[in-house]
């Protein structure tokens, strides 16, 4: 039983990180209707910068630089590229971000090369004990950070002007524009925010118990996609729930590999997608996505 609890708790904390990455996807989609395939390489850039800079300028300054850089890159993708083709269809926009992703990740792979770059976090490989379950300190901190960020975001969206602007732009862009809402500003804010979330997610994904920053880190953002889909693409709450579910599912499946070996080995990778498909069969727009009600 403790084994199950330990895995489940570990999965929840991992899920919190996935939730952050998933939130990035959802934020961009709600504000501008784009699936941002470049999220993964922005994550990688953020983690990489922390890895390379924590020695010369210290950990916390490095984190700040990384967050700023990720936000900037994300913003530039929107301002320079997406803005020109806002009216294009979903597939075109998605592939456009894919092109950016290819450029960024190729350059990152070149830079990282053989190295496994540690992020130099002050909590290192420390372990905390919660009711008999040992959890890496980095994961607990990740969970706490995720909680704070999600709460802050929820509050901001509800209460601030920018939040209201974003919600109305998401509901009906044309009308919002007619009402005087600067759509470009809203978009820029959303993309920058997604960059911030990606960088933070990257920091925690590259921390212990992972080895450090490797080129494969960009692919982890891919693992957040089932989370976004099953939560509902335009629902931030869905992204969080989806992230947690996916985190728990992958860790449980990896931990119980032996018992589940009749399903084939290595189901930890494919289980999130199966869960996603199952959810979609029952709720075609994800758990919390806006349902299109059409009856003809």
């Amino acid at each position, binding site marked *: 039983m403790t084994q199950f609890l330990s895995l489940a708790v570990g999965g929840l904390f991992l899920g919190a990180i996935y939730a952050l990455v998933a939130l990035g996807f959802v934020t961009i989609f709600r504000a501008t209707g784009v699936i941002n395939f470049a999220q993964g390489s922005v994550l990688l850039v953020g983690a990489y910068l922390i890895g390379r800079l924590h020695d010369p300028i210290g950990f916390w300054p490095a984190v700040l630089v990384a967050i700023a850089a990720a936000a900037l890159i994300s913003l530039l993708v929107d301002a320079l590229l997406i803005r020109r083709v806002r009216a294009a269809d979903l597939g075109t926009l998605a592939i456009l971000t894919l092109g950016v992703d290819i450029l960024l990740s190729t350059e990152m792979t070149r830079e990282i090369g*053989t190295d496994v770059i*540690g992020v130099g976090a002050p909590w290192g490989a420390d372990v905390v004990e919660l009711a008999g379950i040992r959890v890496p300190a980095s994961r607990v901190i990740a969970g706490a950070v995720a909680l704070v960020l999600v709460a802050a975001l929820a509050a901001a969206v509800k209460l601030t002007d920018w939040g209201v602007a974003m919600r109305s732009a998401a509901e009906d862009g044309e009308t919002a524009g007619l009402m005087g809402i600067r759509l470009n500003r809203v978009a820029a804010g959303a993309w920058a925010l997604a960059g911030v979330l990606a960088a933070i997610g990257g920091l925690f994904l590259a921390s212990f118990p992972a*080895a450090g920053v490797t080129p494969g880190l960009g692919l982890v953002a891919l693992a957040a996609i089932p989370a976004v889909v099953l939560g509902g693409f335009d629902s931030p709450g869905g992204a969080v729930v989806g992230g947690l579910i996916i985190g728990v599912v992958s860790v449980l499946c990896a931990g119980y590999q032996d018992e589940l070996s009749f399903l084939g080995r290595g189901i930890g990778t494919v289980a999130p997608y199966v869960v996603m498909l199952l959810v979609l069969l029952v709720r075609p727009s994800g758990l919390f996505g806006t349902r299109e009600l059409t009856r003809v």
Partner: protein
Amino acid sequence: MSRRWYAITTVVLALAVGACGKGSDDGGDSSGGVKTGPGTTADTITLGYLPDLSGVFAPNGKSMMEGAKLYWDAKNEAGGICGRKVELKTQDTGYDPQKAVAAYQQISGDVVGLGLVLGSSITSALLPSVKQEDMFLNFAGWTSDILPNENVAIAGTTYDIEAINAIDFLMREHGLKAGGTVGHLYFEGDYGENALQGSKYAADKHDLKIVEQKITPADTDMTGAVAAFRRAGVKAILFSAAPPQAASLAGVATSQKLDVPIVANGPGWTPQLLTTPAAGALAKRYYVVSSMAPLNDESEGVQKFLAAYEQAYPKGTPSSNGSLYAYAGAQIADAALTKACENKDLTRKGVLDALHSLTALDTGGTIAGKLDFSDPSQPPSRLVYTARVRKDAPGGLAVIGEPGTSDDAESYQFGGS
């Protein structure tokens, strides 16, 4: 489509057709009494190299090319092979079978054999053509799944033999007893699953239980695996994956108080691991079993390699399964080509036959043991080096004792997969 497009298309096609004429075949003829064929002339011998320089294994690939250049540059300076200079034709496969096949098509006409092919899915994709062309292929990998094979040369022994020897090492030196449980963390694919065959065989022989954890290169967090190992009460862990996973495994195991020895196959180590936070944990409990020599080994071949490497690449980092591997592979190719020249037959078949006639090739210690290529269904050796992690040793590994092998490893039969 408008008439203009048709016209343009036809013109372009005509130009292309004119530009790429089919090359004429290099027929076999004699030069100085030695039969030559594609890839060999009176003054040159051309070898094909197909590493991965931009894909998943790019760091290994680049390191390997350093080792290859090191060997052949020195050899050419010393006069080459029977008066002929050795040239390399290198193509990047990007670890993509499609690219690999196209790259192979590009160089196959001009080379006498393949001095290096990285990756068993790549090698698999090329085998039908390589077989047809009678070329030898130096396989930059150590899986026995590729055996039996007339054309493939493995530099040392295979992952399953390494795993058997790893279990033997644990039983001899780390108190692993019959009835105990061993965890095996392995990659999906030819590398990990081949090692697993070995560990299962040894476990069978000694009444041990193996707890399997299969992962993919994308998995960087070993928490779930360590939890499973702890639950099963493993006394040791076998590791058949890559360095990032090694760092995670060592770190998580330490944090979860699973203080057991970890024994890895050759590819599980890279000197860069000493710069990660897991370095301390690795130095305490990580061992490597491989037929490639640790770089602090005192044998003549290894020291010669190390000296040459440090001179040619003062800023580089030598590695056992990167630059040293390619260097050793070149030694094998050199031996085969030299023998072929002695037999006055430098055709592809001639070189292949010469390779199979080598029964006691001594690489000076870069590969454990003397290599016997006469039986295509066996790897050329069953000996391995055992090493521990040591921060100040070149390449980060310090050899333990002499290369050897266990009785189980000697008696192991390759059943194919």
